[in-house]
């Protein structure tokens, strides 16, 4: 009964008119921020910090506003993934794979509603998981050392090959390019710069938001210019919103599996939402009976990553609150907000500041309900932003992309780099090289390398250390299985017929 008492205390804090108003406006602003390419949850939350403090809000109100924006952006990221094939933020990357083909088949509305429901399932269940298990789950983070993390990332890369249904060599090439880009910057173990050409701006490596916006949004602009605005994919019409009951029912198990995978990826501080949605997608691809039609507009391919990334967002709050370890860029910003409010997350936060924790949890639950309403019946509102004619929309995207990227570090180098990535993306599209593996290489490569190097320092160069725990061995087995299985399956199942 402690739980209910705590929760009702939390709702008492969160359910006032002013906080509800903040939750609604936070969800609204967050959804828009998330749906705009280049503005993700982390800069969405970051740019609202000065506003929150200048409004003179108290600790709970600030938290309600910030988490509403955070969750809103996680929901919103899918909108441009589905309609424009441009991920609104990095965890929404995987949603482009099936969401956009669905939209091209005239099922954009279905994809949006389905992904909205999946987001809700993922986020809601994850919040409940956070509520029930947070102090216990913190221990999971202790179990993961360098060798376990390395095996986890290896698993991700081993399943990458299955991502490109057409040409695995091109996918491998693309992920190698991504890994190479990930190496740019100060080497964390020796402190020496690599591949920076003496440029201070490259010392911290390439920000993956710069890469995403360049590869997806800027290259789209180049394609648009080249075709003189005729042959562009952008500008998908949205039909009447109906509830695709059949898809939702069919994807029920998918959502639950995606939620589970995403939540656990979120709990691990080194993994986060991007890995969560990736593993949820790849897991579902191998588990679902119709997994071979993933990438061609399978509704399950939309449900899995959306449940996964929203669950990961909830999971990422676990190490942030209980250990003070931010699992993602956004939780790092939230951590900063907490510290500024003189709330120090750590093992004792749940006991010392229950009103903060339970207020936060209650506001997360409220935000989720608000977002479900906003993102299913009212999704048209947000689609309006993106469904204006391409010759109006693309300059807008260019503006937001440049503004958003500049706001990251306030440096013009990032803008130049973004344009370079735009050119790379343009040529990749022309050559049929998938850009998703490039992003994943950049996103995950650094962590994988760092953990391998740490493992080697700890063990003094002894490779057997990588297999020194049950978790690590299990992950290795899964990784090898994930790499080898498709090679055999490919021969057994002939080329999948795209579903029409």
């Amino acid at each position: 009964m402690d739980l209910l008492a705590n929760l009702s205390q939390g709702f008492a804090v969160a359910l006032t008119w002013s906080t509800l108003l903040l939750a609604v406006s936070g969800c609204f602003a967050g959804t828009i921020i998330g749906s705009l390419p280049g503005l993700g949850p982390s800069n969405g939350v970051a740019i609202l910090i000065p506003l929150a403090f200048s409004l003179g809000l108290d600790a709970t109100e600030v938290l309600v506003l910030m988490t509403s924006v955070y969750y809103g952006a996680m929901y919103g990221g899918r909108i441009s993934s589905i309609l424009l094939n441009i991920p609104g933020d990095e965890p929404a990357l995987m949603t482009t794979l099936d969401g956009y083909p669905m939209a091209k088949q005239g099922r954009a509305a279905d994809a949006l509603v389905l992904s909205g429901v999946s987001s809700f399932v993922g986020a809601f269940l994850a919040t409940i998981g956070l509520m029930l298990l947070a102090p216990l789950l913190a221990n999971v983070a202790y179990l993961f050392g360098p060798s376990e993390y390395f095996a986890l990332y290896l698993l991700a890369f081993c399943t990458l090959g299955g991502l490109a249904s057409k040409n695995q060599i091109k996918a491998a090439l693309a992920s190698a390019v991504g890994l190479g880009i990930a190496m740019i910057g100060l080497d964390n173990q020796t402190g020496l710069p690599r591949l920076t050409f003496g440029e201070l701006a490259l010392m911290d490596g390439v920000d993956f938001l710069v890469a995403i916006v360049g590869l997806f949004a800027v290259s789209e602009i180049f394609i648009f210019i080249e075709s003189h605005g005729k042959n562009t994919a952008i500008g998908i019409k949205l039909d009447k919103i109906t509830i695709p009951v059949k898809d939702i029912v069919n994807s029920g198990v998918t959502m639950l599996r995606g939620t589970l995978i995403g939540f656990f990826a979120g709990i691990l501080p080194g993994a986060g939402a991007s890995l969560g949605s990736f593993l949820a997608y790849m897991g579902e691809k191998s588990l679902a009976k119709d997994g071979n039609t993933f990438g061609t507009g399978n509704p399950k391919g939309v449900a899995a990553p959306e449940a996964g990334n929203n669950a990961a967002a909830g999971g990422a709050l676990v190490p942030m609150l209980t250990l003070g370890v931010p699992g993602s860029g956004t939780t790092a910003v939230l951590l900063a907000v907490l510290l500024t409010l003189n709330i120090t997350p750590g093992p004792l936060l749940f006991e010392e500041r229950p009103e903060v924790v339970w207020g936060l949890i209650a506001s997360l639950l409220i935000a989720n309900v608000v977002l479900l309403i906003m993102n299913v019946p009212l999704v048209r509102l947000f689609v309006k932003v993106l469904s204006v004619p391409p010759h109006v929309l693309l300059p807008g995207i260019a503006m937001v992309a440049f503004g958003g990227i500049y706001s990251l570090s306030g440096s013009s180098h990032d803008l130049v780099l973004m344009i370079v990535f735009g050119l790379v993306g343009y040529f990749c599209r022309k050559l049929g090289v998938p850009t998703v593996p490039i992003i994943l290489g950049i996103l995950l490569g650094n962590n994988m390398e760092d953990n391998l190097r740490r493992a080697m320092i700890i063990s003094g160069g002894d490779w057997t250390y990588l297999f020194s725990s049950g978790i690590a061995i299990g992950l290795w087995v899964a990784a090898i299985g994930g790499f080898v299985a498709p090679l055999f399956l490919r021969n057994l199942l002939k080329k999948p017929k795209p579903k029409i």
Partner: protein
Amino acid sequence: MKFSSKLIGASFALVMGIGTVGNSAECIAPANPGGGWDFTCRAIGKIMYDIGAVDEPIKVTNMAGGGGGLAYGHVVNERNDDGDLIVAASSATATRLAQNAYAGMMADQVSFLGAIGADPGVLVVASDSPYMNLMDLLNAVMNDPTSVTFAGGSATGGFDHLKVLMALGEVGYDDVLSVKYVGLDGGADAITQTIGGHTQAMTGDISEVVGFLKSGDVRVVAVFTDERIPGFEDIPTAKEQGVDLVAVNWRGLYVPKDISEADYNKWADALAQVAASDEWAQAMADNGLAPFTKVGDDFQEYLAGVIADVQQLSKEIGVIQ
């Protein structure tokens, strides 16, 4: 749907407009939100405004890159006479300047304003660790350097790493390359790895370990200050245990080089007011900072000494030539 497009227009304007909040003074935190520099900007900026030392709220800009080098270069090259700018700094700033890690830029290319608090350095082990005190830990390294891996929140050659080597140097162990150190993404990450048993000890600052100390997950074997810290009287200093080392991570600010003397004095005065305020005393207590106030010339003199020391040491241990 007429109504909705208006709404969208308005929210668009909201999203685009939020980034700029008037033309107040700016504090650059040369790192992403969440770290010490970010705390410095936000806490000092907020208190300066709250106690009336400045008229407008201070805007915080995060400019991560090159371990603070990007912001340093930005200030030196583009904002060299901006009187409305302050930048967060700490021991790490001095360490990197001493090690030529800011692409050859020197400490005298900005004006250091002052430090108004310090995070004492600590060595921490998990509560079930066999190492009960500082000498246990250092002896273990001296007997078999492969038996102990230190985890810290900064890269190799950073202040967390140097502290371990300095402490070992004090007890006569100078085979610095044999000491195993892994750099993680922040102190909390390093402590998580140590509690999980993946590394044997964590080197960091006391603010990074407070939560874990209170929950009983870790034991602090030594704090590198002259005296025991108020509020943490149970933690023995390294000096008491025969290791004569004082290593603190001071928190402070620098300003651009070519601002007017009036502007410099205005900021120095505002910083001194913060240092003397009750709000700052509370913020220090909440974050495990110990009082450490040096403003203006006093600070610059102290800093020159520190940089010379780190430079000397970095050469001895081979981090720089």
